[in-house]
C-alpha cells in the first residue's frame, strides 16, 4: 500500500517537472541547503582515512576523510587522474578500499553482504564517466532498466522516462538505439538513468564533459530540482569550472589522491564541512 502511495507521489512530482524547469532559472540559487550541524546529525556518507592503491603502486586516494550530509550538493574537483572517479567507485562499492572505513547510510561497506550491496545500489544513482549504456538497446530500455530492477510498475516507468527525457531535451530520441546517439546525448541518457529511480544519493562523474552550455544548464537544473524537492544528496565530480565557479555549494578538491577544500573557497567554509 505504502508502495503505491509512494509511486503516486513520484508521478505527481515528475509531472510538474516540465513546468518547474522554467520556474528555476539557472542563476536563481535559492535552493542551497545549509548542512546540518556535524555533531548532531549522522552523515549519509562517511569516509574515514580511506586509502586506495591500485596494484602495484598507483595511489588513487590517500587518507581521505569526508562526510557527506543528507540533502547536500558537493562538487569534487581535481586534475585528471587525481582520483575523483575512484572516490565515487568507492562509495558505490565498485572498488574496495585498501585501508580505511566507508559508511553509507550508517552501514559499513566492508561488512555488507552481496545482496546488501545490491539493495544499496538501488538507492544510489550513478552516472558513470564512461556512461555504461547498452549500445544495442533503446534509450527507453536503458533508462527503464534502472527502475525494472526495483520491480517498478511499467506504467510508472514509462511515465517517468518520458518526463526525464523531456527534461533533458531528448524526447525525440526515446526509441533510438543508445549506440546511435551523439556522445552528448548519451551522457544525458546516463544521467537520466541515474535519476530514474528517485535515488537518495546521486553520484555524477563528469556529467557535462560532452555537453554544450545549454544542455549543461538543463543538467544543473535537474540536480537542483532533485535536491530541493526530493532532498537528494548529490555528488558531482567535474572539471567544468563554469558549474562550480560561483556556487554556494561545497566544493572539495582532490590532488594526487589527497582531499582538501577547493582553493577558491573561503577558509571558514572549509571548517564548516571538514570532519
Amino acid at each position, binding site marked *: 500500500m505504502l508502495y503505491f502511495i509512494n509511486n503516486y507521489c513520484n508521478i505527481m512530482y515528475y509531472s510538474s517537472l516540465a513546468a518547474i524547469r522554467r520556474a528555476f532559472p539557472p542563476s536563481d540559487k535559492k535552493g542551497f541547503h545549509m548542512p546540518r550541524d556535524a555533531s548532531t546529525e549522522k552523515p549519509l556518507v562517511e569516509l574515514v582515512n580511506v586509502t586506495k592503491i591500485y596494484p602495484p603502486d598507483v595511489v588513487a586516494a590517500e587518507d581521505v576523510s569526508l562526510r557527506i550530509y543528507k540533502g547536500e550538493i558537493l562538487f569534487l574537483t581535481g586534475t585528471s587522474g587525481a582520483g575523483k572517479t575512484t572516490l565515487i567507485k568507492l562509495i558505490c562499492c565498485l572498488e574496495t578500499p585498501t585501508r580505511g572505513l566507508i559508511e553509507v547510510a550508517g552501514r559499513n561497506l566492508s561488512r555488507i553482504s552481496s545482496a546488501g550491496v545490491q539493495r544499496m*545500489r538501488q538507492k544510489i544513482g550513478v552516472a558513470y564517466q564512461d556512461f555504461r549504456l*547498452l549500445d544495442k538497446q533503446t534509450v527507453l530500455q536503458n533508462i527503464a532498466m534502472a527502475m525494472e530492477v526495483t520491480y517498478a510498475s511499467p506504467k510508472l516507468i514509462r511515465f517517468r522516462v518520458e518526463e526525464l527525457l523531456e527534461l533533458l531535451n531528448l524526447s525525440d530520441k526515446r526509441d533510438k538505439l543508445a549506440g546511435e546517439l551523439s556522445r552528448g546525448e548519451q551522457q544525458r541518457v546516463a544521467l537520466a538513468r541515474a535519476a530514474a529511480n528517485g535515488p537518495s544519493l546521486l553520484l555524477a562523474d563528469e556529467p557535462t564533459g560532452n555537453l554544450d552550455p545549454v544542455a549543461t544548464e538543463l543538467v544543473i537544473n535537474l540536480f537542483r530540482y532533485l535536491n530541493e524537492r526530493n532532498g537528494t544528496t548529490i555528488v558531482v565530480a567535474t572539471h567544468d569550472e563554469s558549474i562550480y565557479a560561483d556556487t554556494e555549494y561545497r566544493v572539495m578538491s582532490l590532488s594526487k589522491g589527497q582531499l582538501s577544500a577547493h582553493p577558491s573557497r573561503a577558509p571558514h567554509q572549509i571548517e564548516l564541512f571538514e570532519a
Partner: protein
Amino acid sequence: MRFLAYILRQTGKNLRQTWGTQIMTLLTVTLSVLIFAFFFLIYTNMIRASERLGNDVRLIVYLDQEVPEQMRPEFEKKIRDFAPVEKIVFVSRTEAFAKLSAQLGKEKDVLNDLGPDFLPPSIEVYPLKTLNDLTKISQFSDFLLTLPHAAKVQSGSDWLRRFGYFTNLLRVVVLLSAGLLIISMTFIISYTLRLTVLSRQGELEVLRLLGATSAYIRLPLLLEGMLQGLLGSSLGLAALYSLYQWIANRFSGPGFLKLFDITFFPPEITAGILLTSIVLCTAGSLFSIRRFIRI
C-alpha cells in the same frame, strides 16, 4: 505477483533479444542429447545382442559309437563337474538323421543314397550363459574331446570367433566414435557457454551496477536453461526415435536375424535423459553467469 510478472517478462525479453544465440544453444543441446542417446542405444543393444549370442552357444561332441542309455548319467556327471551346464542332449544316429532330413525338408532326396546310419551319434552340450568367452569355450571343448569315444568336438568356434571379432571391432568403432564425440561435445558446450557469457556480459554488468538482485538476474536465466533443456532433449530424443524407426524398418530381417533385433529405450530411461538434460542446462546457465554474481 509483480515479481513473477517481471521474471517472466524478463525471460521473454531475453529470448527475443538473443534468439540467434538461443537457437544455437538449443541446437547444441539437441545435438548433445541425440549423440549421447544414440551411442547409449547402440551400447545397450550391443549388450543385449551378446547376451542372446550366449544363448546360442552349443558344443557338439561327435562320437564314434553310441552311448548306451545306462552310461548317460556318468557322462553327464563328468561334464557337469568340469563346467556349469544348462542342458545336455544325447543324439543317436537315427535321431541325427531324422533331424537332418527334417532340416532339409523338400530336399531330403539328397539323403536317399545314404543309409540312416551315415551320421555319427553326438552329445549336444548347452553351457550356461556365463560361459561367453572364447578361450573358456575352447578349453571346454578341449575337455570334451577327452570323453570316451569322442571323435570330434564342434564348438561353432569358427563362427563364434568371426562374430566375436566383429562385435569387438564394432565395439572399438563405437567406443572410439563415442570418445571423439564426447570430446567434440565438450568443445561445443564450452564454446556455447563462452558465447553466452560474451553475449550477456554487457547486460549483466550493467544490471549489477544498477542494483539488480541475484534473483532478478538468475531466475530468468534459470527458466531459460530449463526451457532449453526440455526443448533440446525432446527434439534430440525425437530425432533419435525417427532414426531408430528407420533402422528398425530397414533391418526387419527374417526370423533367424532376431539375434540383432534392436529395441528403443524404455520410458524410464527416456524420462531420465529428459530430466538429466534439464538439470544440466540449468546448471550450465547458472555457471555461465557465476562470474557476475558475487559470492
